[in-house]
């Protein structure tokens, strides 16, 4: 049932660099925030830098540390919120900051409005093979 990546750690470094991981940021009042809030199912994975930051104590705020540990296996924004008992709004801000600092990679849905027929075919294929 689990995908190929499920047992690995530090997934961020294995992603295809050519795929868009984080969209352009709009900078407001010294803090960055994506123009559109991260989707509930945007996927987050701790990068090599994030792994290094976990080992060097004090580099990450406590909540960021927890996120970096959790996302050694890939988790969605909704899962991070539920697992760490943090409000979604807080998770979004933290992930924004961590992505900007290179601690995590974020993979947002390919088409935020509606899945493409190609993606629907892949989902259908995957579901019928369970």
């Amino acid at each position: 049932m689990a995908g190929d990546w499920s047992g690995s750690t530090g997934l961020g470094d294995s992603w295809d660099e050519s795929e868009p991981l984080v969209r352009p940021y709009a900078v407001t009042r010294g803090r960055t925030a994506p123009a559109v809030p991260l989707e509930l199912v945007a996927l987050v994975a701790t990068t090599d830098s994030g792994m290094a930051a976990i080992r060097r104590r004090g580099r990450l705020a406590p909540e960021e540390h927890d996120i970096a540990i959790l996302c050694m296996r890939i988790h969605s924004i909704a899962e991070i919120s539920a697992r760490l008992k943090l409000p979604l709004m807080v998770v979004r801000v933290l992930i924004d900051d961590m992505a900007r600092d290179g601690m995590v990679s974020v993979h947002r849905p390919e088409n935020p409005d509606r899945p493409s027929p190609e993606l629907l075919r892949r989902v259908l294929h995957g579901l019928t093979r369970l």
Partner: protein
Amino acid sequence: MVSPVSKRAPTAVKVLVAGGFGVGKTTFVGSVSEIEPLTTEAALTSASLGVDDTSAVHGKTTTTVAMDFGRLTLSNNIILYLFGTPGQDRFWFMWDELVRGAIGAVVLVDTRRMADSFPAIDFFENRRVPFLVAVNRFDANTYEYPLPMVRNAADLAPHRPLMYCDARRPDSAQTTLVHLVRHALELALSGDLPDEP
């Protein structure tokens, strides 16, 4: 340079599970989920009503609604998230976030309280979100309505998939999901969907 095929990042998709209170939404989510269903507190803000995001920073209203969800990893690097929609009907107009990007919705119906699921049907019809209606036979004593009667009572369009399911059984819930995705694909290919939900 890494290969785009072998190193493809996982893709996440979502399906909504809706219906009246106590119709079996969380049971459905739990029976196909590979994890114990989780609960997140979603803050639904006035920004969800189409107000510009940045302008909504000041004086926005926030309501917190609990959502149950589960996760199913498909073999081809796709993670399917199932979200049980919040039970309170009065928050439905704020559901933009859940609906946006969703494959579609499974609307569960309990024939003893069929009308409880009508608001969900109306909602997805109005928003032109792909959905199907699944009559949950979770109780052996449930009086079984013939599906044409259910279609008639719920005023469902002829093309709208309507089926029985048993939310407690993973194979039944999975079959329901297959029908939903197939329906969403047919609609997408027929060009019968707006660009934005």
